[in-house]
């Protein structure tokens, strides 16, 4: 069953075409990655799917029950709030009492290995920790669909690897839908059930291909099959 339908989306910025005729469906429970070179419009499409931006034409049909949350590229944590209050922000906006929020976010703090840092402020955290808070803030509102905009591009490679592993665990355990933008093909192949491949040719539709990744989970990122998938997709982008 599809939870979001992207239908013929076009987006121009001042006569510059960013997205051309982009269409695909997001299936409930899947991990979908949008991959492509910078400037191909993948982040713009993510923002359009979240209604943060309007398309020039086309439409997004979102299932009524869908509850979205977003993890940001540069974390976008509120600097004046502690880790605890950042994670509980969405619940506070819903009017939930403080004691209940604390009860609700405790398992998330544990799950994201943030225990002991609840009272720190974002400024006092490393990049990896910040993104854990970003993920925690998104999970706290119990989303049915988790959007991630290049979530690991602002952290170092080792941390990114660890975060990818944790993200997969969270996705599998909570049975949520994940839609992630990345510019790394390896990252997409490691995480996704399906990869939407974007191109930069202004005379062609934005989406070159929607590839199914059939590799069994957990995926061995050093196997021959893994590299074969990566090579195949990278060839399509070139």
């Amino acid at each position, binding site marked *: 069953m599809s939870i979001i339908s992207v239908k013929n989306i076009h987006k121009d910025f001042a006569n510059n075409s960013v997205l051309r005729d982009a269409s695909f469906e997001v299936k409930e429970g899947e991990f979908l990655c949008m991959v492509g070179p910078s400037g191909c419009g993948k982040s713009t499409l993510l923002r359009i799917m*979240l209604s943060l931006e309007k398309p020039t034409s086309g439409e997004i049909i979102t299932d009524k029950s869908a509850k979205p949350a977003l993890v940001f*590229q*540069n974390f976008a944590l509120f600097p*004046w709030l502690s880790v605890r209050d950042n994670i509980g*922000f*969405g619940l506070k906006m*819903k009017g939930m009492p403080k004691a209940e929020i604390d009860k609700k976010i405790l398992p998330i703090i544990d799950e994201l290995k943030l225990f002991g840092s609840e009272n720190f402020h*974002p400024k006092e955290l490393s990049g990896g920790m910040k993104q854990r808070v970003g993920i925690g803030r998104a999970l706290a509102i119990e989303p049915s669909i988790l959007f991630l905009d290049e979530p690991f591009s602002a952290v170092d490679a080792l941390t990114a690897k660890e975060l990818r592993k944790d993200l997969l665990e969270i996705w599998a355990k909570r049975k949520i839908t994940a839609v992630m933008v990345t510019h790394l093909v390896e990252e997409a192949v490691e995480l996704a059930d399906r990869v939407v491949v974007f191109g930069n040719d202004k005379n062609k539709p934005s989406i070159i291909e929607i590839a199914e990744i059939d590799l069994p989970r957990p995926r061995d990122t050093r196997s021959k099959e893994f590299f074969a998938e990566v090579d195949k997709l990278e060839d399509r982008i070139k």
Partner: protein
Amino acid sequence: MRYTHQLHHDKLIRPRFRWLSAGIFFLIIAIVAVLVGFSGLFDIDKTAFIAGFFSSLFRISVAYILAFVLAVAIGLTVSANSEIEEMFLPILDVLQSFPSFVLFPILVVALKSQPDLVIILVLTITIIWPILFAIISGVKGRREDLEEAATIFGAVRQKKFFNFTLPMLLPSIVTGSIVGWGEGWEFIIGAELLVSTHWGIGKYLGQLGSSGQNSSLFFGVILLLLFLFLINRILWLPLLHNSTKYQADA
């Protein structure tokens, strides 16, 4: 983890102690100055000075609150979208350069029986500018992804105002307020000389000056400076410190 936590803890606490010890130091100086000042040595009229100071403080506080509310309302309206901003910013720029003392004669005639109101109104017009422009530039410099995060996680209308806009602008507001507050004190001394009020620190110092009590005037000015310095120490500097402590990248 425990070790880094400890380190971090020290880092947070120490500046506070420093503030506190500096505060106590200045408090002692102030108490000594007040005792000397009011000892009769300098012939300062205790009642006139204290009543004058607090009358002026009251006027400035009322004007500050008015200016603050207006500046937030105007600042957020003007910077709400770029078209409104382009239209109003030049107007505000011209208005800002307008010396507020010019309004005095007009208001004195218009509100003859209300000298306090005249002073408060002109004070408000003086104090508002630094706060207003700090807010406008604070809105301009905001991080858009933070605003999107606020929207996505459900901060709309007044919830957005109290949970996102206000805390985001707090450092700008405090900086603007410190400047505005200072300009307010500068202004009120002159204003109280011009408009006849019953009590006022400007009025009292003016009386000391015109009756030739030079040493009293001199010590009165020193005392006033100390009082203002204390307000800065106790109110504004801790506010500034707290509002900027966690800002910067997140």
